[in-house]
């Protein structure tokens, strides 16, 4: 009898393992348009009201506990911010002239991103319920015109891109996810391009493909490069350089960038209604030559203050 029960238990386990492998295979082969993708989207839509309610309920409590655990760093952050306010007040006086200059340069460069891409505001309703991915879900979906691969920004800068869309929800792959790569340009003197990659939830990004001889300053701004067929329009602020070093004999600089957007606490974002593959200004295109673009004219993007140097 005991032998029979043991055998029955093993049969159940084998069946469950085989079912799991079948599901994995179906998902990997079918992609987001397959039957598993459909089940996922339906489940997310069905779960949406609960998700929104739970977010409204638990986010304040989470923020409170987060504030307690970060109280030490908050005090020093407060001091640094006071100093920053003083600096910014000085800069503000000069900003009027720079705004005008910026506008003129933008016209000259004819950047498709700045001030022309239609955006859609959305609320972040949940973060990934696991420890091995860095995603956030927003309360907008395909009904609102969101599609896969659209860039997402906050007031500070780039947040990520849309990787999955259901009727009422969309999922953002955040900059800190290791699967997320962004073509960037150093906005200082060098104008060098590279690629950032997330470091599995760390609050900095790794930058590759920067020549070891390139002069890079700490605090230097990094923006999306927007090279041809890029996933992001050019000029969206990504972050600032926090560490630079060059190892002897290395083929590239060791560069770390801290995202401008606070990705762990984002609450509202703007989705740029701009698709990967939309015609953008090719870097090889001489300034003045206008590439055809299907970008609709509407309210300006949140990050349109950023520009190429």
């Amino acid at each position, binding site marked *: 009898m005991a032998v029979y029960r043991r055998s029955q238990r093993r049969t*159940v386990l084998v069946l*469950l*393992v085989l079912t799991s492998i079948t*599901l994995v295979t179906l*998902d990997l082969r079918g992609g987001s348009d397959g039957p598993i993708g459909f089940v996922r989207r339906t489940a997310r839509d069905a779960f949406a009201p609960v998700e929104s309610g739970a977010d409204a309920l638990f986010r304040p409590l989470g923020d409170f506990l987060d504030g307690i655990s970060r109280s030490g760093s908050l005090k020093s952050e407060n001091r640094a911010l006071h100093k920053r306010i003083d600096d910014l007040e000085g800069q503000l006086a000069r900003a009027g002239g720079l705004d005008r200059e910026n506008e003129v340069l933008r016209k000259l460069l004819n950047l498709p991103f700045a001030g022309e891409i239609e955006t859609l505001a959305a609320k972040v309703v949940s973060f990934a*319920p696991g*420890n*091995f991915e860095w995603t956030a879900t927003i309360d907008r979906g395909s009904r609102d015109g969101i599609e896969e691969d659209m860039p997402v920004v906050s007031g500070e800068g780039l947040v990520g891109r849309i*990787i999955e869309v259901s009727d009422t929800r969309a999922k953002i792959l955040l900059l800190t996810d290791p699967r997320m790569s962004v073509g960037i340009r150093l906005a200082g003197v060098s104008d060098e391009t590279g690629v950032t990659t997330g470091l599995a939830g760390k609050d900095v990004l790794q930058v590759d493909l920067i020549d070891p001889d390139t002069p890079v300053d700490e605090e230097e701004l990094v923006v999306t490069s927007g090279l041809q067929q890029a996933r992001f329009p050019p000029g969206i602020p990504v972050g600032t350089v926090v560490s630079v070093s060059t190892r002897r004999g290395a083929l590239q600089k060791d560069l770390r960038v801290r995202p401008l957007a606070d990705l762990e606490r984002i609450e509202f974002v703007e989705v740029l209604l701009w698709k990967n593959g939309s015609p953008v200004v090719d870097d090889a295109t001489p300034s003045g030559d206008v590439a055809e673009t299907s970008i609709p004219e509407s309210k300006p993007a949140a990050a349109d203050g950023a520009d190429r140097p």
Partner: protein
Amino acid sequence: MNPVRRRVGAVTLLIVTLLAQSSFFPHFRFFGVMPDVLIVAVAAVAAREGAEVGATFGFTAGVLIDLFLEVPLGLSALSYAVVGYGVGTLHTGIMRSTWWIGPLLGGTASIAAGSLFVLVGIILGQDHLLSLRSFTVIPTRAIYDGVVALLVFPLTAQLLGPAEDELSPYEA
């Protein structure tokens, strides 16, 4: 034991832990890590009900959480089912009703499930799992899960009713 009560209890436990995992705990990360309350529930059910029920409960819980993750559907289901089976098999030989069994089983199940998830994920081409962070997340999460088990094991006992070895001779 009342089989209807056990089934209703198991479904209730599944819903409560799924909600907690997807909506509550993402706001309560420590050192960037959140617990895996579902694997703790799988361990708790397997410890009370044995390998067969543990594996089935683990598989169901895994499929449901996979719907909200960006990994191939079935990856968590596979790791939870195997761990549920393992805890259920282990439990039949050594289970004692002491307070530290819950945290110990919860933490151990968390390490086993996390390791299996990462290993199978890498085999399936989920290269982002192959990072140093995976090795720091798994033990940190296990400690967190051990603490969460102090709540989940008693909750499971309440919802599923007394296990066979806890019944008085009259009830049995």
